[in-house]
């Protein structure tokens, strides 16, 4: 272990210096620190914050890889150079051509997201003189997966700086934030540069160059088509497998589900939140379906397409699945109590589908719904805890009486 010893020696030498936190961050990323607790009744476990973060990243990697292929696939499909994929292992999808095109577009997003975000974290750690926190490891991976593939890199940098500083550092850093930083970054992009974040021109990379004129070819997402009462030619298999236009990593429901199962079995993600959020989305979808089948809403209504979408389709189109598995379950911003998690998840799903249908200008209701519920999570917890206290007080009274 020569490298480890050497790094430790350097660490000892520069202890207390100004740049020490920056160095320690790299050191502990590579190895566990040399000083660990030796005595006393501490729980000794390997699943520290860093291990937790790395588990989530592992769950995200399939989505990232799929996103890279999908970016290329959507491009060449729109160009008419390839046939649409028929099965999950279709050679038209998993081709080198798609990969190189997608990687060229997606990897810079990943690099910028990590580079800028960690830079901000390092600067804050050095100024405040505390160790660099690992919180950005997951955020940095989530961000490139939830933006359109053609997002300009400078916009992403501005949004990352905003999200990390305003969404996290002002509250005191990792573990103290009220809002999910990745969603804060996306919300910032969404409100600051709407033309780059919604509409039908942003989901297929180089849409403008493909059309060869000032008008880009249309690569509308399913939600976008539905909001305008337009037909789309994707079937359920496409939606479930992910051969649809959308943000980089959120299209493939099946890979997201696999990631979600991985998180549940490694006990990192809360199955309560995931399940209740799915239930919430289904419930709202069922209500809308009911409204349509009662014929309170007719085809002339602008909500007709979205409302008549079969209720369970809402779970596999748009960012619902991704938000459910990777965003809503963020342990810092979600509810902490078990009962609270059910309420939090259910409302997040319920409101997601509601925003989707009622406000076609914001097709991605998932982002807004989760941010909203992030704000309410502490309130929900408060009432759950108070309810429990009350129940126990009552029991105590009965016993003593």
């Amino acid at each position, binding site marked *: 272990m020569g490298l480890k010893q050497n790094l430790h020696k350097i660490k000892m030498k520069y202890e207390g210096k100004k740049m020490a936190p920056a160095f320690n961050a790299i050191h502990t990323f590579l190895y566990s620190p040399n000083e660990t607790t030796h005595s006393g009744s501490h729980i000794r476990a390997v699943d520290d914050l860093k291990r937790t973060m790395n588990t989530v990243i592992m769950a995200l990697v399939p989505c990232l890889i799929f996103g890279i292929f999908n970016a290329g696939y959507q491009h060449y499909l729109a160009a008419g150079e390839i046939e649409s994929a028929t099965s999950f292992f279709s050679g038209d999808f998993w081709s080198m051509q798609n990969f190189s095109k997608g990687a060229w577009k997606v990897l810079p997003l990943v690099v910028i997201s990590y580079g800028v975000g960690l830079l901000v974290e390092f600067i804050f750690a050095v100024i405040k003189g505390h160790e660099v926190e690992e919180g950005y490891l997951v955020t940095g991976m989530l961000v490139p997966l939830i933006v359109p593939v053609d997002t*300009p890199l*400078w*916009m992403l940098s*501005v949004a990352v700086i905003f999200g990390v500083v*305003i969404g996290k550092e*002002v509250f005191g850093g990792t573990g103290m934030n009220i809002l999910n930083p990745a969603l804060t970054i996306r919300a*910032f992009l969404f*409100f*600051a*540069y*709407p*033309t*780059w974040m919604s509409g039908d021109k942003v989901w297929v990379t180089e849409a403008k160059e493909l059309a060869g004129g000032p008008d880009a070819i249309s690569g509308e997402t399913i939600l976008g088509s539905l909001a305008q009462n337009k037909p789309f030619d994707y079937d359920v298999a496409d939606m479930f497998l992910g051969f649809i236009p959308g943000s980089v990593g959120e299209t493939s429901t099946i890979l997201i589900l696999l990631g979600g199962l991985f998180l549940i079995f490694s006990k990192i993600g809360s199955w309560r939140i995931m399940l209740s959020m799915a239930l919430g989305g289904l419930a709202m979808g069922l209500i809308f379906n009911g409204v349509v089948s009662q014929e309170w809403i007719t085809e002339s209504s602008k909500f007709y397409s979205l409302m008549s979408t079969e209720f369970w389709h809402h779970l596999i189109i748009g960012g619902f699945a991704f938000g459910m598995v990777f965003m809503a379950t963020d342990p810092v911003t979600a509810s902490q109590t078990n009962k609270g998690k059910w309420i939090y998840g259910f409302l997040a799903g319920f409101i997601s589908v509601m925003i989707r249908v009622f406000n076609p200008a914001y097709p991605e209701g998932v982002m807004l719904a989760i941010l909203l519920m992030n704000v309410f999570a502490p309130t929900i917890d408060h009432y759950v805890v108070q309810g429990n206290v009350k129940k126990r007080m009552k029991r105590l009274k009965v016993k003593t009486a």
Partner: protein
Amino acid sequence: MGLLSKKDQKLILDPLADDNPITIQVLGICSALAITAQLKASIVMSISVLFVLGVGNVVISLMRNIIPSKIRIIVQLIVVATLVIIVDQVLKAYAYSLSKELSVFVGLIITNCIIMGRFEAFALGNGPWRSFLDGIGNALGYGVILIIVGFFRELLGSGTLLGFKVLGDPIGDPVTGPTGLYSIGYENNGFMLLSPMALIVVGLIIWVQRSRNKALIEEN
């Protein structure tokens, strides 16, 4: 400032920084969020408040010994309302488009907490000259923040300052395309035009101010 004694100078200078009505007393936030999307509107709003608060403080101070304390709020409201109506009419007469832009917020100066706050806290207990200085100082402190916020919101949100395209032209002429920063791919930040961003900008000013002067940080 040879005209003013040390104590009088304090009345004007304190609200500009260490006792700023917006960033320290956290009053008058609503208008700071609502009308700062354009620098011009911020400046006009600042001048309007300067007038209302300066004159209002003097009027209240002159009447302070004859106002029955039970109905003083009503009297104060009448004074503010009168002054605000004057401002509103002047704006309508000489700057109609601006008055349209500020719309209801000129009328809402009546409810600006800074004004009632200064009447209550200062003008009711001090002479007219000192009240005048206090009013001017607080209005200036309010205006400084409004103008800073308006500057950043207009610059980053619309790419203009007072209507001048300082960052270049986003559309440009049909042949050469956009000019200035826009020719290299820069875009305006639409979020800056929304009120939440004004709150964040005010928050950042508070952050900068308190980290420069640790004495301002409240204990909690």
